[in-house]
């Protein structure tokens, strides 16, 4: 900022003031390389067919919604491994309560959001009041939730009514509703982090909890709220998935590896696992990279195993591209 000279640098100053997270350069690179490969080895739909572009985003909706919540907790130097099973319990409970009837929709939504809030509250309380490492705490709660739903519900319990599927498949003009919802959640996350007191407190807690506490931040409360929001986003993702599937099953969450994938996309987006640094827009970039990869692999007809392998390699390379120059030793 200070280096910019006054004359004729107005444009450059504006460009500099927009901080584009570096993940978007990787996103563009992945998109171009994928599109080129598609052009050479397949039918070249990625560059020519706008429906595919939309599809990339639609594929990313569920992961994107959870990743917003995950970003919040990771900025607070915590982590949430229970999101996958929070998604599962939402999918199962929603379709169980709805039983295919429109009248049951409001109460089903109320029930799942209450469950989500309870999961987040329990996670937050255990982490802040009992001083349990967040990794272990949420691993434990995810085991507990998985036990409860696998023990109580069989595969495909109940169903969601036709109208509820609007959430998953409906469109508003040319744009799918699901994309609008993802955008809304991302904007909400951005607003929370950069325009509210809660957001700045969360960065403070993640950066240095003790300093934040001594400067009057109620660190425990901030972290508990972050965990509740994170579980709520998982609930929303679960509702989205169940509206697409038509019926809930206990394997929805773990099958999509939403726990580890949401953490991976958050970190690819530039949020530090050690907390205090990062943002929602980076995470969105990370999520879109996953969406682009998915689409490219599908177009090229890559085997699912090679897909997993390449995804793993890309996670490492993407994160390494920022961490490479850091002087600090990591663990």
């Amino acid at each position: 900022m200070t280096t910019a000279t006054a004359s004729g640098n107005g444009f450059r100053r504006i460009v500099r003031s927009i901080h584009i997270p570096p993940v978007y350069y990787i996103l563009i690179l992945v998109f171009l390389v994928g599109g080129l490969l598609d052009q050479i080895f397949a039918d070249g739909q990625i560059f020519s067919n706008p429906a595919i572009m939309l599809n990339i985003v639609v594929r990313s909706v569920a992961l994107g919604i959870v990743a917003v919540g995950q970003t919040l907790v990771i900025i607070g130097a915590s982590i949430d491994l229970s999101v996958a099973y929070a998604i599962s319990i939402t999918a199962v409970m929603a379709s169980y309560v709805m039983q295919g009837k429109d009248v049951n929709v409001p109460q089903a939504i109320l029930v799942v959001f209450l469950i989500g809030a309870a999961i987040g509250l329990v996670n937050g309380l255990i982490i802040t009041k009992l001083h349990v490492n967040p990794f272990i705490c949420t691993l434990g709660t995810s085991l507990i939730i998985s036990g409860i739903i696998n023990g109580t519900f069989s595969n495909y319990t109940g169903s969601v009514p036709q109208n509820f599927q609007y959430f998953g498949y409906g469109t508003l003009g040319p744009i799918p509703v699901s994309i609008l919802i993802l955008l809304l959640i991302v904007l909400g996350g951005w607003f929370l982090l950069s325009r509210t007191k809660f957001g700045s407190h969360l960065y403070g807690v993640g950066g240095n909890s003790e300093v934040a506490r001594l400067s009057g931040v109620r660190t425990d409360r901030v972290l508990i709220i972050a965990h509740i929001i994170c579980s709520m986003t998982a609930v929303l993702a679960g509702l989205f998935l169940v509206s697409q599937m038509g019926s809930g099953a206990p394997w929805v969450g773990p099958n999509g590896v939403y726990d580890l994938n949401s953490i991976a996309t958050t970190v690819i987006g530039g949020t530090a696992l050690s907390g205090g640094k990062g943002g929602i827009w980076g995470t969105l970039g990370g999520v879109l990279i996953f969406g682009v990869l998915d689409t490219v692999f599908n177009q090229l007809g890559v085997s699912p195993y090679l897909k997993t392998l390449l995804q793993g390699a890309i996670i490492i390379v993407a994160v390494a591209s920022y961490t490479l120059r850091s002087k600090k030793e990591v663990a």
Partner: protein
Amino acid sequence: MTTSTLTPQTGSSNILGSIWAWIKKVPPVYPVFLIIFITLGIINHSKYQSMPGIMAFLRTAAPMAVIAIGEMMVLALGGFDLSVGAIITFVVLVSSKLLANDPANAFPDIMIVLGFGVIIGLVNGLVVSYLKVPSFIATLGMMMLVRGGALGYVGGAPQGYLTDNWTAFGRSYIEKVPLFGRVPYALIVLIVFTIIAYFLFHRTHYGKQVLAIGDNVRASQLSGVRVKLVRVITFIICSVFAIIGGIMIGGVGGVNMTVGTGVEMQAIAACVVGGILLGGGKGNVFNAIFGAFTLQAIIDLLNLMGLPKPYTDAVQGLLIISAVAYAGITSMRKR
């Protein structure tokens, strides 16, 4: 720490006091394991209080104990290794193809998978040390790489079965051993690797350096510890121990596609139950082993009580949280 320096007044209470101080130093995992194991014995006397039953229990618990030792070293360093589960999938699936149903291939196969273990650990260590990728993400990526590679290599389905001499490490017993009756190979493997790990971790500079790095990277770096080298070695040890554990798990469970899924979390849970805190700076080979034993004993206990598998998971989750909460509360009180 402070309790041992408090010297009681009279002679008799001095002895009692020192015994009490000694008891207090015993990590809680040992009495907990003992209580659970005795309870098992009360419920099913013939199985858990007879030599063959105890040996059978050790056979089931040994693989996770070996894996937990490796994971413990990485945890002591302050890192994570999430790739161990995928390594087990890799060992079982790749071996099912490499063995080609011929017992003569067992030795070369084991050498090959061990070689891959070294490479996986080396890459993990190099990525964390030189590319500065946090180990959580580096090993998460490695988990996907290894799982994808293994499944791709076998084409998504097991290729053949595991030969008897290969599965012996996890499944078979040495018969007619005096005093013990029959001793599982798995127990011998566990003892051998426990001794190796004990010497590495508790009797060499290397072990001290691991703990120093886990405690404070910067300080250990300034005092001349070769942080990168130690870290790479630790990741290699963890991967190799996971390969050994994978051979034992394959021996007990045979070939299936879901083998290895979630093992990384179980190994971390075993360490945590054994009192090893995440974040580094603390570690003990025997605590990790008994953490794994305790988890297995709990699973056995819940099975005996007729609880279905899903609820066993739930109770495990509850226990993991309580173990760490207990450790956290007691360490806070000491402060």
